[in-house]
């Protein structure tokens, strides 16, 4: 086991293991303090980052942060590692990788070069380099990575920003869900997915919601996909029962124990992926999984201890979840960054940083990473912080963001983005919805040729009958 030392002025700091060095090098956040692995002082954090910069990437292949014998995510990480592609960067340290990435983004073939190291990198390497990077570095590198996925729409194309329309309702009332769906469609949302968090996991209730959304999609010929965010076992059962399942949802995390806490295994996720693909419901692509992750979920499940029983920092654990995700070639994945609570990300500053880290790490590993730009009422954050994170993520060419009516989710009791916020981001960067969906919006008279969502009278719009059932 390597011991790391770094002298800063009169003090020499010692870090007993790579697990400890990674945690101490992490930007400050409440979750690492709760786990007892955060740097004790700002100086110790700076020293750890200095020491981490000199660590060869090779060390991450031999000094495992979570033991392979007891953790199937670690085994998956090692299986995924492409030794041939790795030769391009195997000579680098973590600091060297940071410079390589920032140099690469200035080249004309940046997207290809970044795609070429996708499987050369492990989540731990990507987490490590992110700890050395400033927010602007996380934005500029993520911006240069291109990831495209498709089902009935294509998400992640240049010049596009997609949205998940989230029409939640506390009792899954079909009229209330329909009304919120209408609100979102009129404001140009829903090209990534129309996705409901159901109030219960009852298979019958989930089936009813799937039929509701699928009927709306077909009646108005909307090129999009629906999802009811229920447990993967419920979705598998509903596929077998013939329900109209477009995308299969599941929350995932970065250790075997945390995934067990979610009631899933890698094999179960693969089974769900195959089951949904076998339905062949996609028209322009066959990515069928929708995954959610978020820093803090592993600690919350008390499954965050790694080698020698040392606590692993939450950002590294989050990056490891992306190994599970990319095994499934998902259509969408998003971090629920501010949702998990102030015990993991205390305030707006920590939420913004974590959102940029998650987006950077997932994209570099080849995922269609979106974000739920959000916060709860017990976190020190507000809409101003959300404006900052949305603006930065849009600058970083995030594939999609989640939107709810007026930014207020009345079922989950938290604030996400509103549909209007997506219009702001699209206007700022000249982006448009997915091409298939944009064509539909234009055809329906909801969007102008220049890409503006028009202020139409809902009672005379093509969607007017959606409001008739209320």
């Amino acid at each position, binding site marked *: 086991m390597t011991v790391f030392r770094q002298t800063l002025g009169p003090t020499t700091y010692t870090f007993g293991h790579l697990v400890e060095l990674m945690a101490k090098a992490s930007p400050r956040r*409440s979750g690492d303090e*709760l786990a007892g692995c955060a740097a004790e002082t700002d100086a110790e954090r700076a020293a750890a980052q200095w020491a981490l910069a000199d660590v060869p990437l090779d060390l991450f292949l031999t000094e495992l942060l979570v033991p392979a014998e007891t953790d199937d995510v670690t085994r998956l990480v090692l299986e995924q590692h492409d030794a041939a592609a790795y030769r391009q960067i195997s000579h680098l340290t973590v600091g060297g990788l940071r410079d390589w990435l920032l140099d690469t983004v200035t080249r004309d073939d940046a997207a290809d070069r970044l795609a070429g190291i996708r499987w050369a990198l492990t989540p731990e390497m990507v987490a490590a380099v992110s700890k050395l990077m400033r927010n602007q570095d996380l934005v500029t590198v993520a911006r240069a990575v291109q990831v495209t996925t498709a089902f009935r729409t294509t998400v992640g194309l240049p010049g596009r920003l997609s949205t998940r329309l989230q029409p*939640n*309702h*506390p*009792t899954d*009332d079909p*009229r*209330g*869900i*329909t*009304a*919120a769906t*209408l*609100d979102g469609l009129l404001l140009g949302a829903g090209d990534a997915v129309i996705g409901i968090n159901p*109030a*219960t*996991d*009852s*298979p*019958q*209730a989930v089936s009813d919601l799937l039929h509701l959304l699928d009927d709306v999609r077909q009646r108005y010929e909307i090129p999009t996909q629906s999802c009811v965010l229920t*447990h993967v*076992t419920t979705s598998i*059962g509903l596929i077998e029962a013939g329900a109209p399942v477009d995308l299969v949802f599941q929350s995932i995390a970065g250790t075997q124990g945390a995934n*067990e806490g979610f*009631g899933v295994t890698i094999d179960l996720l693969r089974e769900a992926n195959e089951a949904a693909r076998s339905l062949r419901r996609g028209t322009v692509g066959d990515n069928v999984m929708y995954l959610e992750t978020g820093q803090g979920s592993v600690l*919350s*499940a008390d499954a965050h201890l790694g080698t020698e029983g040392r606590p692993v920092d939450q950002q590294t654990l989050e990056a490891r979840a992306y190994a599970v995700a990319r095994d499934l070639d998902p259509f969408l994945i998003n971090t629920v960054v501010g949702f998990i*609570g*102030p*015990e993991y990300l205390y305030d707006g500053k920590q939420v913004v940083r974590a959102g940029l880290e998650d987006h950077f790490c997932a994209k570099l590993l080849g995922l269609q990473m979106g974000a739920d730009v959000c916060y*709860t*009422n*017990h976190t020190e954050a*507000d*809409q101003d912080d959300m404006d900052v994170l949305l603006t930065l993520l849009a600058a970083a060419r995030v594939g999609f963001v989640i939107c*709810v*009516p*007026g*930014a*207020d989710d*009345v*079922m*989950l*009791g*938290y*604030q996400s983005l*509103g549909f*209007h916020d997506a*219009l*702001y981001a699209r*206007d700022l960067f000249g982006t448009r919805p997915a091409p298939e969906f944009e064509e539909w919006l234009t055809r329906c008279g909801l969007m102008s040729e220049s890409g*503006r*969502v028009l*202020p139409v009278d*809902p*009672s005379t719009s093509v969607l007017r009958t959606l*409001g008739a059932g*209320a």
Partner: protein
Amino acid sequence: MSDDDFWAALRRTTQSRIGLGRAGDTMALGDVLAFRAAHAQARDAVHVPVDVDALVADLESRGLGTPLLVASKVADRGEYLRRPDLGRQPRDLEHLPRDTGADIGIVLADGLSGQALTDHAPALVAALVERLTPRYSLAPLVVATNARVALGDHVGAHLGVETLLVLVGERPGLSVPSSLGIYLTHHPRPGRRDSERNCVSNVHPPDGLDHAHAARIVDALVAGARDLGESGVRLKDTSRSLDAAADGPAALS
């Protein structure tokens, strides 16, 4: 029909902020200010401790008995937010009866909304008692303060109940200041994972789930857990398909 009339009809179906006015591409100022006011109130609500006296008096007045009180290891609301680990551990259980052998235990936990407990727990407990007894025996009620769901595992194990229900105050939202969640854990014991529980959320009539309907779902989950010998992801809520669907979930008159 004007925009206003169109949305007014739809607003009867949801508390969602639908059909907001626009200023350019963004929200009208009135909606922005209303949002800010709601956020301020929701933030304040998180820090208000549960009114235990009022809760106890309400439970007693309904003939539900006097609950036993348990505190977590948390010192105050500020620490409650920062230290979920301490909120999951009881300070002391010695005053609770041991190994009651009861079929069901009920713990009322303040969670993130003490107001949700005082608003909804007494009526929900009454609905549960009506629905579950005398078929099942109940352990004495427990009220837990500065508590998270997993604290119930310690209480349930101490009481020696077969199935534990934790009624917990959910995160206050902007439009929903007091909402209760119900977590069911079969064979409760410290160390149970979240995947070993079932949740019925958003109990807050008239807009959320009503008390009688929530009790009906819990009844089906209890029966299912006893059949299966476990709770969690393998246990599915089948109350909907069992009910004569005449009064489906949308019928919250």
